[in-house]
């Protein structure tokens, strides 16, 4: 199980990093999503892998699994969900206003829309 989980995290991270380094906004967003999945799994695994153990107190339980990583993962999921929504909107606005989904600052500096 450890090997499976580790390989899964590794593959997700590799895919995420590859996509983040693309030059267009959509692959970058997908890459960030993959990375956040990898990070969530990683956080989950940091409390050690255990099967059939309760996280909170049960009178007849022999051993417990660590509940804290689950709380941390929940926080991380909420934050990454909100962030993904934000960056999707940002990419869409950028696409609609500039007509390209390049993530580079190609436009000559000081050009149109630069005045604040």
């Amino acid at each position: 199980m450890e090997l499976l989980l580790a390989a899964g995290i590794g593959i997700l991270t590799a895919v995420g990093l590859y996509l983040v380094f693309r030059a267009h906004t959509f692959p970058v967003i997908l890459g960030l999503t993959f990375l956040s999945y990898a990070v969530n799994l990683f956080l989950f695994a940091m409390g050690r892998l255990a099967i059939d153990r309760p996280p909170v107190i049960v009178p007849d339980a022999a051993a417990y699994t660590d509940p804290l990583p689950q709380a941390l993962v929940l926080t991380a999921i909420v934050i990454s969900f909100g962030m993904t929504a934000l960056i999707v909107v940002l990419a869409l606005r950028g696409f609609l206003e500039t007509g390209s989904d390049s993530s580079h600052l190609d436009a000559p500096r000081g050009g149109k829309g630069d005045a604040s």
Partner: protein
Amino acid sequence: MTPAISALDHAIILPVLLPALTAAFLVLALRHHLRRERIVSLAATGLLLALAIVLFALASDGTVRAYRLGDWPAPYGITLVLDRLSATMLLLTAVLAGCVLIYAAGGVDGRGRHFHPLFQFQLMGINGAFLTGDVFNLFVFFEVMLIASYGLMLHGGGPGRLKAGFQYVAINLLASAVFLVGVGLIYAVTGTLNMADLAVKVPQVAPADAALLKTGALLLFLVFATKAALVPLHWWLPATYAGTSAPAAALFMIMTKVGAYAIIRVYGLVFGAGAGPLALAAAPFVMPAALATLVVGTIGLVGSRKLRDLSAFAVIASMGTLLIAVGLFDVEGLSAGLYYLVHSTLAGAALFLIAGIVQEQRGAASDRLIPAPAMGGETLLGGLFFLAAIALVGLPPLSGFIGKVMILQAVRTCAIWPWIWAAILGASLLMTFGFARAGSVLFWASGPVSERKPLPALPGLAAVVLLLAAIVGWALAAGPATQALSLAARQALDRNSYIEAVLLPGAPAASEK
């Protein structure tokens, strides 16, 4: 059983609560009334300033105060910690926020929606990051601060700003992912994320786990270095700061300092000199990166073609100088660094606000460093620019000079100090050229005044004058300020009093002599 805490101790959580409640009130009740939004936002920031002064006075007795939310004991509950260092940072944030808000109230806040709620949420995140005593909460407050900063960065809109904003958001999401991996590694090895508890457990780590823990610590360092714009992780900063509105860029001055603060906190305390096998884990990387940052910032500054780009590179150069001092991880270096930190935050913000005014006044030429028709209020603006430039370059008599001299003295303990002196002094010389070139093009190489031009808006000028007055005051108060900051630096590097205050609340308060 923990001792009952006084009402004054509850004030520790108010710098987080006050902006949070203000922001919610603004967005729910006043979102269609810009004028009322301004009044409430300014009043709340004024209150925050008063609160920061109270907390600063509270912290100046030398006690480290831990505030346990819900009175849960320390390693389990959420802890906020107030000491001299965090109180100083809170005060600086409040002063900066007040000046920036006065500028924004001059009209920039009306160019998009929800400027004031975003501003307050950002203050909440910054204050929280300065107060938290827990690495995961540091992550959460970083995120609060960043989410608000995304909104502020994009405020006012425009395609250029959207592109720069996408990069800024993407870089920070990547940094957040790395932050979580680092936090995960640290938790997996030590089983805790409370900074005081970490400071106890890190020195006792089993030799087999030391490498894993160090990996986690260095991943965290990467994140803080990104926030602090250390080379080679600084590329996001010029596009972001030059791409956003003047008040947003001025407020962001404190965000790079949050990165520097996190480096001081985590690598001065948790992985500090007393951390056994992991002592000073990040120290070998800070100094070379800081020197490279100074060099890159200076070269960028000389090569800039717009005043806002120049300001952004001046920020990078000042972060380099600051982290050279922090990278010493001793009391003298840290107190010099803190003095310079306050100075560079105020001076950088003043420069960005001046760039904003210049941009408004010059119309089509914007802030590009090309000759253009004379602008209204040129003499006054030129004078203010001159003062801000002197402050940032570090020429006497302003506080930049005092800060740099203190840093030069502090690095004498370092083996490579001649190189550091050469870098800092050479960079100052080049920065003088850069600023002189920009100033002479902007304020002298202008055509004759054809018609009467309007003077700059009063709130903007007032904000710049206030910031510059604060810099002058900071130079005049250099004596008492360095004494206080020296105590703050000593306290920040003292593991035992921090650990006692957070983990052993029943023990007699650890007070310094």
